[in-house]
């Protein structure tokens, strides 16, 4: 989309250009009171990376404990807390806000040629709500921990557990508002602030995926809000709605919880799919194959996501008819996911593929999402699920989707857009080492768990049968490689901030609008308001001729 007439004058290093969003004003206060979507995106980015680090430490502790069949480093109570906090931190502090709130906040207005999101102050409020929620969650860790599992199932969470359930769930409740307001802001921005000429079908596909994500955030999160509120009242005042001794129904909690939390799975994966689309197109210099198919499959996934929550409850006493219907609807999700998969491959076909660092993450995403997605079909099959339910097969499946797909796409997007956000390039060699260790370590850790699961190893167990010990130990060794990979990636990116070479405006020769302004962009995003005349992945005639 090299059509803004400002390309040449903006194609300089930031040092030459002078002011940008990072050095426009200085001081902590100027950041805490900013309404600039780019600064808010950066603050989210730092926050979710801290959340990721926290969740990651708990993950390594859990894996270390499982090295031996009996006690290794912690007792059973501590182990319950460690896996709960790993899950809760990863889901609520990292994955759900990760791509939309950091990369989305930064790039959504840039990609549509807008100066900001529709409600900049609301955007800042979302960030503060996220921080307040996070503080309640951290307070829970300090004041007694949480040992319910990240799903807070009743009656254990509402009565039996003696840990700080209220503080943790209230934190999630507050963070839910942050998520709702971000989604609301994105929907209105996409409707009202597209630059002249930026029609819906000219938007980069990352934005279609964010749009679908926002719909889920707005429609599903309130249900989680009311569910957690009921749980808090149940625990504090024994209102009885989830308590069988008072006539309440614990399974109702599961229905409510998964009515949000299954769509939330797509809040996590859809933005990753969008990032992957941008990476695969840019780094193979190909127009996206099947633009509309990918765009509509995002919306289709968002809609179907509301109809599949019952597949978490195949063994919760649900009727066979309900289970059969939910099973069928679950298979239905595979159709739009498959549409995406084949269109991504179609995009790569005949492209001039460059194995840059973001592209390595992009291809890893395809590989890992294929495994994560297909193993979901195993679990959606009723007879197979009865065997695999609550085993390590489930753990491996959702780690392939959540971490192998979403987190890999997130880090791919981080490497893809890093030059734009920071104005600095990174050390490609070191970044490749970080990627390679992450990819190898990830498969090492989690493919092993597919095997553990099919052999009947139940999830969340502290002590296990000796026959599982070799595979558990093998998985734990993998987690060390994985942790090292992420550590190297962080070192690489941190070093780039200090010593990285200045980034050009468009280092990857991408066609989308965010690359047509300086790196890093100025506070107003564009020198002149852009007028769009080409599709997102279309090159101007003089380039293609």
């Amino acid at each position, binding site marked *: 989309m090299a059509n803004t007439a400002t390309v040449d004058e903006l194609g300089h290093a930031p040092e030459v250009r002078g002011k940008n969003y990072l050095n426009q004003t200085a001081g902590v206060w100027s950041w805490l009171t900013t309404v600039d979507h780019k600064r808010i995106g950066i603050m989210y980015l730092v926050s979710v990376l801290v959340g990721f680090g926290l969740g990651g430490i708990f993950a390594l502790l859990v894996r270390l404990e499982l090295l031996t069949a009996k006690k290794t480093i912690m007792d059973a109570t501590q182990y319950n807390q460690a896996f709960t906090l790993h899950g809760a931190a990863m889901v609520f502090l990292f994955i759900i806000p990760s791509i939309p709130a950091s990369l989305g906040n930064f790039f959504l207005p840039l990609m549509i040629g807008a100066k900001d999101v529709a409600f900049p102050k609301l955007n800042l409020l979302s960030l503060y709500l996220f921080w307040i929620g996070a503080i309640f969650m951290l307070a829970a860790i300090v004041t007694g921990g949480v040992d319910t599992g990240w799903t807070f199932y009743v009656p254990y969470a509402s009565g039996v557990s003696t840990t700080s359930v209220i503080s943790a769930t209230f934190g999630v409740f507050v963070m839910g508002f942050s998520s709702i307001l971000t989604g*609301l802001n994105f929907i*209105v921005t996409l409707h*009202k602030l597209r630059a002249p000429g930026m029609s819906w079908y000219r938007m980069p596909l990352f934005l279609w995926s964010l749009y679908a994500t926002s719909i889920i955030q707005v429609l599903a999160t309130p249900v989680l809000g009311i569910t957690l509120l009921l749980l808090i009242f149940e625990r504090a005042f024994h209102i009885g*709605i989830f308590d069988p001794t008072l006539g309440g129904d614990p399974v*109702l909690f599961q229905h409510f919880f998964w009515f949000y939390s299954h769509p939330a799975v797509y809040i996590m994966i859809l933005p990753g799919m969008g990032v992957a689309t941008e990476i695969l197109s840019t780094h193979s210099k190909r127009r996206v194959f099947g633009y509309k198919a990918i765009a509509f499959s995002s919306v289709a996934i968002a809609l179907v996501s509301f109809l599949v929550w019952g597949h978490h409850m195949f063994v919760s006493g649900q009727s066979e008819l309900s289970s059969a219907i939910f099973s069928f609807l679950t298979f239905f999700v595979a159709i739009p996911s498959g549409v995406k998969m084949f269109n991504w491959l179609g995009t790569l076909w005949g492209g001039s593929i460059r194995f840059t660092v973001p592209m390595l993450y992009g291809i890893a995403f395809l590989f890992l999402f294929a495994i994560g997605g297909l193993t979901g079909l195993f679990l959606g099959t009723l007879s197979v699920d009865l065997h695999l339910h609550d085993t390590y097969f489930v753990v491996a499946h959702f780690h392939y989707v959540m971490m192998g797909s979403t987190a890999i796409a997130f880090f791919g997007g981080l490497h893809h857009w890093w030059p734009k956000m920071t104005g600095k390039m990174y050390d490609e060699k070191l970044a490749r080492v970080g990627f390679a260790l992450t990819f190898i370590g990830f498969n090492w850790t989690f493919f092993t768990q597919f095997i553990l699961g099919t052999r009947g190893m139940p999830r969340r167990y502290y002590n296990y049968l000796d026959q599982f010990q070799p595979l558990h130990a093998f998985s734990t060794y993998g987690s060390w490689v994985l942790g090292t990979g992420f550590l190297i990636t962080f070192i690489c990116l941190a070093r780039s901030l200090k010593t990285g070479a200045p980034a050009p405006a468009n280092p990857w020769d991408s066609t989308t609008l965010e690359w047509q302004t300086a790196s890093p962009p100025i506070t107003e995003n564009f020198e002149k308001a852009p007028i769009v005349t080409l599709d997102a992945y279309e090159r101007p005639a003089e380039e293609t001729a």
Partner: protein
Amino acid sequence: MSAKAEALGGAGESKLSPQFHVAHHFDKADTQFDAGRMGVWLFLVTEILLFGGLFCAFAIFRSKYFPSFVEAHHHLDRVMGGINTIVLITSSFTMALAVRSAQKNETKKTTLLLAITLACAAGFLVVKYFEYSHKIHDGLLPGGNFTAADFASGHPGIFFAIYFMMTGIHGVHVVIGMGLILWILLRNQKNEFSSRYYAPVENVGLYWHLVDLVWIFLFPLLYLVG
């Protein structure tokens, strides 16, 4: 709407809502108004889903413990509930009139109408207070706190759990609404609203209508149907 206002305003327009200017990231005032309104409508959708969970719980437990729900609902005060319904519908009406008078530059009338709306909201809470204290006195409380005797059917505590959760969350919305109405009332007194700029009045109005609408579903479901 503001396009029309611009056509009508002409030379005198700069005197209307002098503090208002289009935010830097919008191309014109119309886009800004549309965006704000769309945001509020989306927010109202989230509110419906929030209450939707409770309505769903109501439907499930009502079908599960039908005799208990019938028996328990006779303990709610239909007269008080009915008065509150009338009070809230009246407040919705005055709120709608306030939006209209703000659009027509009738600042004093707007203040009066907003004040009536505020009074109705306060009246609603006063009636609610008497209802709640009556229930608490009789021990008609949620789940484990339920102490009232002479109930023939099992689990009336579930009915009162849902009653208190739904009306309680609705009551919180009324309190928040009062804060919002007070906020636009004070801004209105500073002559901030006019045919050129009235978005906050309209958006608070939209919110207030939803609060009213939720009650219009709560009242028959909890108080009337047996």
